[in-house]
Each structure stands twice: as structure tokens, then as C-alpha cells.
């Protein structure tokens, strides 16, 4: 089986994101960029599946500007076999991303597509579900445990009510949650080796995909700030304050 893993280049999760003063976006110049952490978990899972012999090849893919090569190289250094960059001017909206991924699935014919449950930039949480819909494949979202057997996957999902287990026929789209695994660290020799691994570049024309966009970001603003309140000296004072406010 071949596994396709979708990576998105995002502002690193340790960066405290700030809105540009003119409200036209957030500041990304000179900011550290990384693989979306949920996607990193997806790649780690794909590598583990390959390492235990349930997959032969792991391919990392992304759609974005040329800079995203860096994140694909990191994916290769983690252990992916090859990479595909679909070069577009900016990271597409989820539905357009799903269209690109569908075209890649049609070319690559993987037995499973893995990606993070959401990207930590737009927090949309849509692309995996949309890809599954376009392919008419099963989807398992928010997965914290994944077991493969007999052409099926048992997926444990972190849902509001607890842990839900569903069974899906393969091929399927699986989106990963935080507790699925802990991604490995990349070692320096792997980074050197990754430079020799294949990284193909495609255009939307090559894939026959057209973007439809459809949503316009009118303005960006910082969130309303919550002011720090007061420090109390004792439990008794805390209880008094809460009683004053009618909260106890």
C-alpha cells in the first residue's frame, strides 16, 4: 500500500502571531515556519505503518508557494520516500486544496490519505473531510488510534462525548489528533540524505484543476483583550470576592 500524507507549511506553533497594523493579514515576514503539527503526527503515523510492513511507500504532498519545499524536505528527512509540490501562489482555501489532493490521489492511487485534523493557521478543519467527499471515500476524523487489518481500518476518534470507534473500508481519508503519536526528531544525517530524495513539482494545469476561491478575507484584527484582574491574598478573600459578584 502507498500512503499519501498531506503537509501544510504554517507559522510555527511557538510563534505568537500578530496582526499587521493595517489589518491586511498577520505578520509572517521573518517568522519561523514549520510543518503543521497535526500533519507531522499524520506523517509519523504513516512512517510507523510502513515500518511495521503494512505500507511500501510514503509520499508527502503539499500545495503552496515554492517555500513549502522546505517542509517537504523536512518530511523526507523524517522518512518519507518522495515528495510532490503543487506550485500555487498562495496556500489554497480548503475546498481548493481538496481538489488538488483529489487530482493527486487520482494520479498516485494511494491506499490511504493521512493529514492533520486542522491547520493551526486558518483552523478550518475541513480539507480531509472535503477530500473524502470528492473521492467518495470513507473519512475518519480526529483519530487518536488507528489499526489496520484485512483492507479495513479501525479508527478511534476523539469526539465531544468521549472516544468513538468506527470501521472504514480502505482506501480512506484519516485525519489525525494530538494523542495519536509523538513525532520523531529528525537527525542530521537524515537531512543530508533527504536532499537526494525525489521532489517533483506540478502546476494546476498539470493536474487539470481550477480554483474557485469564493471567500474573501475583508480584514484581520487582534482579539479583544481580557484584562488581568486582581490578586487575592487568601482563600477567604477569594470567596468574599466571588460572593460579592454573586458567583457563589
Amino acid at each position, binding site marked *: 500500500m502507498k500512503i499519501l500524507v498531506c503537509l501544510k507549511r504554517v507559522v510555527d506553533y511557538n510563534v505568537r502571531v500578530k496582526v499587521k497594523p493595517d489589518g491586511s493579514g498577520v505578520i509572517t515576514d521573518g517568522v519561523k515556519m514549520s510543518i503543521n503539527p497535526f500533519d507531522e503526527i499524520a506523517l509519523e503515523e504513516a512512517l510507523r505503518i510502513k515500518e511495521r510492513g503494512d505500507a511500501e511507500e510514503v509520499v508527502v504532498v503539499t500545495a503552496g508557494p515554492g517555500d513549502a519545499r522546505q517542509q517537504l524536505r523536512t518530511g523526507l528527512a523524517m522518512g518519507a520516500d518522495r515528495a510532490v509540490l503543487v506550485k500555487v501562489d498562495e496556500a489554497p482555501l480548503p475546498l481548493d486544496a481538496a481538489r488538488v489532493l483529489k487530482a493527486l490521489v487520482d494520479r498516485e492511487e494511494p491506499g490511504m490519505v493521512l493529514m492533520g485534523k486542522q491547520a493551526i493557521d486558518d483552523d478550518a478543519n475541513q480539507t480531509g473531510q472535503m477530500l473524502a467527499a470528492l473521492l467518495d471515500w470513507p473519512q475518519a476524523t480526529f483519530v487518536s488510534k488507528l489499526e489496520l487489518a484485512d483492507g479495513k481500518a479501525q479508527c478511534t476518534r476523539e469526539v*465531544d462525548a468521549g472516544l468513538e470507534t468506527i470501521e*472504514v473500508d480502505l482506501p480512506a481519508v484519516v485525519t489525525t489528533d494530538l494523542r495519536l503519536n509523538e513525532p520523531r526528531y529528525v537527525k542530521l544525517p537524515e537531512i543530508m540524505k533527504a536532499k537526494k530524495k525525489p521532489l517533483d513539482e506540478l502546476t494546476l494545469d498539470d493536474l487539470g484543476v481550477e480554483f474557485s476561491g469564493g471567500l474573501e478575507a475583508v480584514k484581520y484584527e487582534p482579539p479583544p483583550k481580557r484584562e488581568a484582574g*486582581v490578586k487575592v491574598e487568601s482563600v477567604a478573600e477569594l470567596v468574599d470576592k466571588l460572593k460579592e459578584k454573586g458567583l457563589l
Partner: protein
Amino acid sequence: MTRILIIAEHDGNELNPSTGKCVTCARAMEPDSVDVAVFAADPKALAEAASKLDGVDHVLAVDGEHNEHILAATLAPQIAALADGYSHVLAPSTTFGKDVMPRAAALLGVPQITDIMAVEDAHTFKRPIYAGNAIVTVKAPEDRLLVGTVRTASWSAAGDGGSAEVSERSVDADIPSHTRFVKLDQHESDRPDLQTASRVVSGGRALGSEENFEIIYELADAMGAAVGASRAAVDAGYVPNDMQVGQTGKIIAPELYVAIGISGAIQHLTGIKDAGTIVAINKDEDAPIFEVADFGLVADLFKAVPELKEALK
């Protein structure tokens, strides 16, 4: 015409309060009509409950064996089939809505707006991005169906004085068999529901163990509060995942939130931004939680929590 369809969330027995919050959000769009669709094996009682929500015009009850356990793969094509004639289809931005709505949107060939937190007009919305570190105003085209999920913590629930008409509806959709429900492991609790409780007590990594977490439950019971936890406490195995409060867990808006032994990582703060009053108890006076707490107590939680419990007796 702004005609809104809301997909009800429920567990087969009870309507989830998130449904009423979607109604409030829908009403903010000044619509011509708001309908609620209830998909269930036996939707009668649920449809009845939905019909009482203030601001609902019609309730559509869709039955069928395949609606016994709601799965995105089986529900999305039914939503797509029912969407005809509506300008908007909304669902709560809970794990239910997040799972099914993008699938429905893609079947309908339209983009989705996730986590609607404010309505400017029927096609312009505010939503949080970057874990709530920025708010973006998004405009959708007026001539296309709009699919969206509603950030429930931003909206109050609709009242229950309504009397909408209920009608049974059959939906013509291909129901796939490639996805099957196996089980739901639910952590049973008699305490108030975390997502809707007016008081919440949460514990963090500083509790140190599952056994020590007991004092959080005891305090919560003394206050009649629901119990939550930070991601660190869940990762450490002190409590199950459904108790996680934060960006990737539950986003909540209780009147009173008590954070105990929680440092206040940005992803946790994202989940409690809309709380009325935040209380923090932490022995580290520099913990970021104090930057957002209305009342902060720098203290050893193992002393302060039992003392607080006693004071409430």
C-alpha cells in the same frame, strides 16, 4: 431570501444545547426563515424538542435506520439533498459539525466558513484564526449556498417558548456502506455537562496524578460545577480526553471558570476566552493564566483547594 437550515445535534435521546445556539446565530442574520433538520432513527421526540426553540419556523424530521448512529459519510449526502432551496446550512462547530459539514459542503461544491463567532450580515462573518490570536472578517458570495459551523461559546441558547411546525421528510440520497459505527466509550458522570455548565473547575498538570485529581472533583461537587482539564493533564493520563478544555478540546463559556494548577498555555486560554469570571490558583506567580484571571491566588493548590472546599460548605 435568507432561508436557513440548521442541522440538529443530538445523542439519539436529547437535543444538544449547541442546536439552540445555532438558532441564535441564525437569527442574527435577520433571515426570512429558520428550519431545523433532525436526522435520527426515531426523530419524533427530538423534533418535538427542536420545535420549542424560539425563532424556529419549521422542523424537518428525517428518520431511517442509517440515522441511528450519526456518521459523516451517511449524513453528509442527506444534508446535501435537503439543502435545495436554502441559502444557508449551519451546524454547531462541535466534533459533530466539524466532522460532517465540510463533507456536505464539498458534495454541494461550496466552501465552508468554520467557527462563526459574530454576524455582520447574512454573508459577512467574524471567525477566529491562529488559535484565537487573530480574528478575520470573511465575506461569502451572496449568490451561492453558504455552509457554516457556529462557534457555540459565542452564542447564547435560544429560549424554549417556540411552537414550530414539525413535518416528516424523506430524503433521496445514496447512503454509503463503507463506514460503520463500532462503539462509543463514554465516560459516565453525574456532574453537569462541561460544555454547557455555568460553573467549571479545571485541573492541570500540577495535580501530578489521577489520584490527586480527586480534589478537583470534590471541589467541583461542592460548587455544583462541571470538571475540565488542561491538555497537559489529559496527555499525562489523569483524566479522559473528553474533559480537555482548549483550542483542540472544548471551547466553553461558563459564568465562572476556576483554573487550578493550570499554567495557561495559549491553546488553553483560547478555550476559556468567553468565560464570565476566571479564577486561577497556581503557585507560580508568573504563570500566564494570571494575565487573564479576574481573581488570582498564588498558592499551593493542595492547601488552597481543600480550604476552598471547606469554605463553601
